[in-house]
């Protein structure tokens, strides 16, 4: 139909990096990143909840930026570097953000926690000492129904300190 524009049909081979490993995934170009992660790669840390980007339970980093995996289509990930909650823990242990959530009790049922941790991680990468306004804005897309956010506020503050003291 068009001689110039690239046409992506099904099956589509998505080539991207997930948690540092290269992946070639056969899928549909419009398949949602959330189902690619959960169903194809068995990475279930990103959770299925609202599926319209209104809760943040499926938050992942794409090239370091937090995005809702439920809103992201396969072709939008081509050549990108994707980090899920499973990619945050290192051989040396948990990320300081994860430690802070455990120490302060920044979670209860835990279903929002992977997405919440991802958003905090992205915030602190771009703003290591965020103001309360910045914290509220950065986490406004992550709904937690259990904690009332008290433990989450404390966890973010502690993570800021933790990162500062660790260098």
């Amino acid at each position, binding site marked *: 139909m068009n001689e110039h524009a690239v046409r992506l049909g099904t099956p589509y081979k998505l080539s991207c990096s997930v948690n540092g490993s290269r992946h070639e995934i056969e899928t549909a170009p419009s398949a949602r990143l959330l189902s690619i992660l*959960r169903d194809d790669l*068995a990475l*279930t*840390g*990103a*959770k*299925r*909840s*609202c*599926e*319209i980007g*209104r*809760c943040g*339970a499926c938050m992942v980093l794409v090239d370091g930026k937090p995005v809702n995996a439920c809103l992201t289509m396969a072709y939008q990930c081509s050549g990108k570097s994707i980090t*899920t*909650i*499973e990619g*945050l*823990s290192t051989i040396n242990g*948990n990320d300081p953000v*994860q*430690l802070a*959530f*455990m*120490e*302060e*009790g920044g*979670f*209860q*049922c*835990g*279903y*929002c*926690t*992977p997405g919440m*941790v991802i958003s905090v991680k992205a915030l602190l990468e771009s703003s290591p000492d965020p103001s*309360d306004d910045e*914290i*509220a*804005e950065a*986490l*406004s897309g*992550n*709904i*937690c*129904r*259990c*904690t*009332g*956010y*008290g*433990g*989450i*506020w*404390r966890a973010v503050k502690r993570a800021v300190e933790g990162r500062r003291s660790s260098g």
Partner: protein
Amino acid sequence: MLLNRANSGGRWRIRPDGPGKVTGSLTYLTDLTRENMLYGLVLRSEHPHARLARIHTGKAKQLHGVRAVLTHEDVPGLNAFGIANPDQPVFCKDVVRYVGDAIAAVAADSPAIAKQALSLIEVEYDLLETVDDPEMALLPDAPQLHPGGNALHRTSFCKGDTAAGFGQCVHIVEETYYTPRQMHTYMETEGGLFVPEANGRLTVYSPTQHGFMDRMQLARILDMPQTDIRVVSSPIGGSFGGKDELNVQPYGALLALRTGLPVKIHNSRWESVRAGLKRHPMKIRMKTGTDASGKLIAHAVDILADTGPYSTLGAEVLNFATEHVIGPYRYSNLSVMGASAFTNNGMSGEFRGFGGNQAIFALEGQMDRLAERLGMEPWAFRKLNMREPGDPGPFDQPIAATEGAGQVWEAVAKSPLWLEKLNRSQTVTCEPWIKTGIGAAFTMHGAGLGFGIPDPAGGRLQLAPDGKIEAVFSYEEFGQGLLASLELMLIEQFGFAAEDIRIIIGDTDVVPDSGSTTASRATAMMWKSLQRLKEPFLEQMLGRASSVLGIPADLLRLSEGGIRLKENGEAALQLTYKELAQADGAEIRCDTSFHFPVSSTDRVGAHFMYTYSAVAVKAEVNTLTGRVKVLEQFHAVAAGPVINPQGFLGQIEGGSSMALGFALTEEALMEKGFYVTRNMDTYLVPTIAEHRGKVTVLPIEELPAGDEYGPRGIGEVGSVTVAPAIAAAIRDAAGVWVSRLPVNPLELQDVPFFLKEGGDRG
């Protein structure tokens, strides 16, 4: 002492489920998959009320990749469920009564095929008149939704003569209060995996608050022995009462048994909204009067609840509301009437607070209005009318007496927020349209299911062959911190190390039936179980150790890692638990079972144990927009000893957040039986931006000498007093009495002061 990390010292611990939750490695039941797994979907009604003329599944069955299409014809046992009264059809046969009613279910090789199959099922409906208003539902000429009529349940409680009482009153306040259809909005929607096992049994991996109740209900539907069904029910991505009743389990189970293959069902958010439970919307009319001194003389209440199409726990919720519209005050004359009406609206049912949220909003609203009428300070007015220790409960039933009421009253009276209110001076700000106010509310909140309802409790301690101390309960972990609380109790009461302990919950094949994880009861019942188990378990453990070591049992004690001598506290281990487990002798195992303590009354639903709570709230009203912000909260909670500081704080903070949503942002709107709010883009639960204010929690731990009941529940009490406190703060700030939730900003708006005559800034 305020509850926070610093004040909790070593009792503030990392939860045992923490690492799995912060790393995403914890597998929820909706994350499970199996080889050759099928995907299940349920076809639900397009209409709130209709006769089913014809259901045709032929085309769907022919679709390639479809493995089963089930309807009411395919239910081997009872085609109905419901905890209290099974009147909700698994699959509707003749009539659909709400937009969540199930008509058919499909299992297919992929979600896409299952979805397509649903679209191929042809259903012909003959539309019936929609009963979307509980008041209309109770009129004699309304379409009747059930053979027994549209009144699911009626309650009444009277004493004295209210008509005569009002005649003696100097001040009378009459008001009608409305509360919203609130959605639990657990982040994990309903779902699970249903596996037919090679030996003919069925394993159900699906969240619930009472695995044995699910097992009983499924056995009834499947016509299978209960022992052939295993229900695995934790971990749970939030419940708040919403997953206590069956949801997708009947469909998953039927599809798995029909196909012989594992079936996964995981509701989309919209499916969860349309089919799931909500908090009962209530209309509560109150007329309350005092004498000239402010003593309550008469209190007349009329409660109307919209219970939706089927029973579930609607009757029990109304009982609870009936008790809590009376609450912690003394009246000379009392008349309470309640009705819960069937409608074609969404299903109402169990939700944290269980009818107390609505009742307390109304009751505390009356107290504030009366105090103002009397020109009394509202907190002093409450004190004047409060039940005394030793007084009976709201239904005049005997209760476990504590000083809780006076304790939480005094805590708020002395709180910085309340002192700020009493000593406030008028200040002119540069934004005079922002007005702040402070309000408070108070309650006694019942725990347990109440008199007349089976409320079993119990648990087990055993020494496993590998030397782990196993604590085995049928309670569930849905985020509240049950595992952490149990671990801490075992450490503190028995001297174990965390590594010595293995907690086993949420699996009907291995746990005893210790009742449901509802009604703020689980922590109290675990505490009580351990109290009862302690002596026999110590006896067995130390007795065995004694015979191994040749040391008298009374010289030995349990400790971290194993058995030590009582003397020389830090001395070396005499025997590890593993060595103890491998020694000769009978299995070391202790069970206990008992009933949740109940009042000696004949009033069904009346409670025996209460948690007392009072809350002060500071809020601001922007009169340009009518929007309300909660700036600060102070919670005083008298519930006995704090079992788990982090969990306690989390329950109060989290409960208060739900109450804030109930007061300000949340309403599952329905129009003519259809949901308007279908997802989280329009149904708005609080975000972190709603929660920028300080929340202070003061636990009051002391109990009367000789109290044998220990910790009272705190799972619900954080969520029941915040809304009336916000309403009082709004009155204080903007001079408007709010009687309908969520607060309508239109009621709080005003013309900018500079446009008013004289430019009055007040």
